[in-house]
């Protein structure tokens, strides 16, 4: 009885699914789907070799310090880094005094409340999170042609391609190709960038020329160098414990491997001579 009912119900679902398939196939044959313009002109992120790639890769503190400098002098004009605190910069190899000085001199300052209760500002301390450039979203949009510069604390984890994507995007601006359809050309306040999903991005090219930043360690600040340094820094900002995670992972794998070998030997020993 259940089998008869089952077959009837089964025929029902199979029939309705086949009905959808039939109409889908008809529509497909009548009007085959065409590749969208966005898809056609979109580029996948370049493959960049970073020091932190792979299970044995680790952050390069000198690169992270240079990246912080690029963030501070270029990106922080528009982009916040709200989940990173000044104290976290100890991990980049700065001393406590250097972190304190960095926080104290950081502009903009940290929002505060004055003695009379009115909004005020004070110098930042290492415990503060990095103050963003705008007091709120409305102010950010107002200053940026109604576009919202995203917070960068998680940007490499929030975009496919991660740090590779950041480098590609920062160095990927060029004038739109001649065969780009008119409706896909950048409108006012937009810039063509094939690495951006819809090809036109509101962010003006932030790294305009070599030497835009003068690195404290004397590294030549080419656009590519600056892009890679800031991408590495943002990767650290998104995943600050990656080095500790990989170190712990290697120890954990060795430990678990030994445990598993012992468990295998125990298993073989217990079953020795027992046919199964």
């Amino acid at each position, binding site marked *: 009885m259940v089998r008869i009912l*089952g077959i009837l119900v089964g025929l029902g679902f199979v029939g309705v699914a086949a009905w959808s398939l039939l109409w889908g196939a008809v529509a*497909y044959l009548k009007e085959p789907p065409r590749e969208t313009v966005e898809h056609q002109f979109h580029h996948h992120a370049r493959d960049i070799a970073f020091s932190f790639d792979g299970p044995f890769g680790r952050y390069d503190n000198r690169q992270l310090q240079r990246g912080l400098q690029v963030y501070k002098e270029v990106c922080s004009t528009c982009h916040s880094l709200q989940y990173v605190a000044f104290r976290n910069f100890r991990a980049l190899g700065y001393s406590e005094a250097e972190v304190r000085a960095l926080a104290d001199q950081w502009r903009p300052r940290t929002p505060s409340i004055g003695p009379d209760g009115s909004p005020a500002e004070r110098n930042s301390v290492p415990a503060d999170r990095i103050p963003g450039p705008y007091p709120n979203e409305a102010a950010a949009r107002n200053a940026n042609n109604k576009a919202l510069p995203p917070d960068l604390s*998680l940007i490499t984890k929030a975009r496919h391609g991660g740090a590779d994507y950041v480098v590609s995007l920062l160095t990927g601006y060029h004038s739109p190709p001649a065969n780009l359809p008119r409706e896909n050309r950048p409108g006012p306040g937009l810039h063509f960038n094939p690495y951006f999903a819809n090809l036109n991005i509101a962010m003006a090219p932030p790294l305009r020329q070599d030497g835009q930043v003068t690195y404290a360690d004397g590294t030549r600040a080419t656009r590519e160098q600056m892009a890679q340094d800031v991408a590495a820094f943002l990767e650290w900002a998104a995943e600050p414990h990656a080095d500790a995670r990989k170190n712990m*992972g290697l120890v954990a794998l060795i430990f678990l491997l030994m445990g*598993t070998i012992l468990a295998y030997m125990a298993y073989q020993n217990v079953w020795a001579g*027992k046919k199964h």
Partner: protein
Amino acid sequence: MSFPWAEHYKPKHPFMRWMDDRLPLPRLVYNAVGKGYPVPRNLNHFWNFGVLAGLALTLQIVTGIVLAMHYEPSAAGAFASTEHIMRDVNGGWFLRYLHANGASFFFIVTYIHIFRGLYYGSYKPPREMVWMLGLVIFLLMMATAFMGYVLPWGQMSFWGAKVITGLFGAIPLIGEPIQTWLIGGFAPDQATLTRFFSLHYLLPFVIAGVIILHIWALHIPGSGNPTGVDVKSPQDTVPFHPYYTAKDGFGAGLFLLLLAVMVFFLPNYLAHADNYIPANNMATPAEIVPEWYFWPFYAILRAFTYDFILPAKLWGVMAMFGSILLLFFLPWLDKSPVRSGSYRPKFRMFFWILVADVLVLGYCGGKPAEEPFVMISQVATIYYFAHFLIILPILSWVEKTLPLPNSISESVLHGEAEEAAPADIGLAKPAKA
């Protein structure tokens, strides 16, 4: 319960005897996973996965309880508190990555466990209740995982919650009020997040409870085995401890090794980048995709694209829920008296087609709803329903099965009377140097 030759619990220590008279908990353990539970001697490694699922649940509960100490279930603070866990809580990244990847591994081992049951006919009499309780656990797992994914309140959390609760809106007349009632408003918001957090904490313990029933029901007939032949004599079985505790220990080691590779080196491989963007009810992601373990069902949902008497969306919802609910009827749809697929050549062929079919459905479910993926998932959906509701019932009428072995021990020993000598017997003798 169990077989007449099962070992009896005989506490030696006076305290254990005292305890046994008052609270026979050690006796319960002894009879459930100790020497007192005789298990077929021929179980292969696919029988490891039930224990591994239990291990995965334990990991989820332990990591989840600690995560809940640091998490804040508020629409304004959930995302930030997740980042607080990742950055400021000692070992917080480890807990969260273990919990997120642990959920995936829980599903991997559960899927293997379910397909083990499908191949070896574990749903057949007398184990129908074991099978159905297992399906209840699976449904509870899906609900728990779905609500857990909402908690970080990223873009996929929010839009996933909106899409999945929106499925109830497809029910005629009462759908919309049910959806509003479920999420406590017209769109996912604070009320949704708080109730999902509450239920996400509750359901794992409900799962643990149903697991107890699942194991209880299993221990009435005892475990099945790859031949599907009933246990007949003491020669057919070995005590669970030490034989299967040792075997499960090895399985658990491999499980933890693979989990560690993911947690420490590819922690976000199974996740979606969009969930690191805070929830925004004004910006719909380009593609809304659930977690990978829901992809086959998501593909079935989206396979129904044209109205047929009822709206296409309602067909999709009915098919999605139906694809799991039909499994409850499996013991009565497949009436073949032979349990194991190893002795059913046609069944075995269709079984492997089903495995490929579900993998195809999973692949399509993770892709955007575009051609050719929609047409492929329609073909795969047709096979899925045909397999369980048409092929299996007919097959159990017409299939000619292979001859079964007389007993488990015969299939293992091939007529040899006794055990071979232990391989290390020479080492056990005292050395005479």
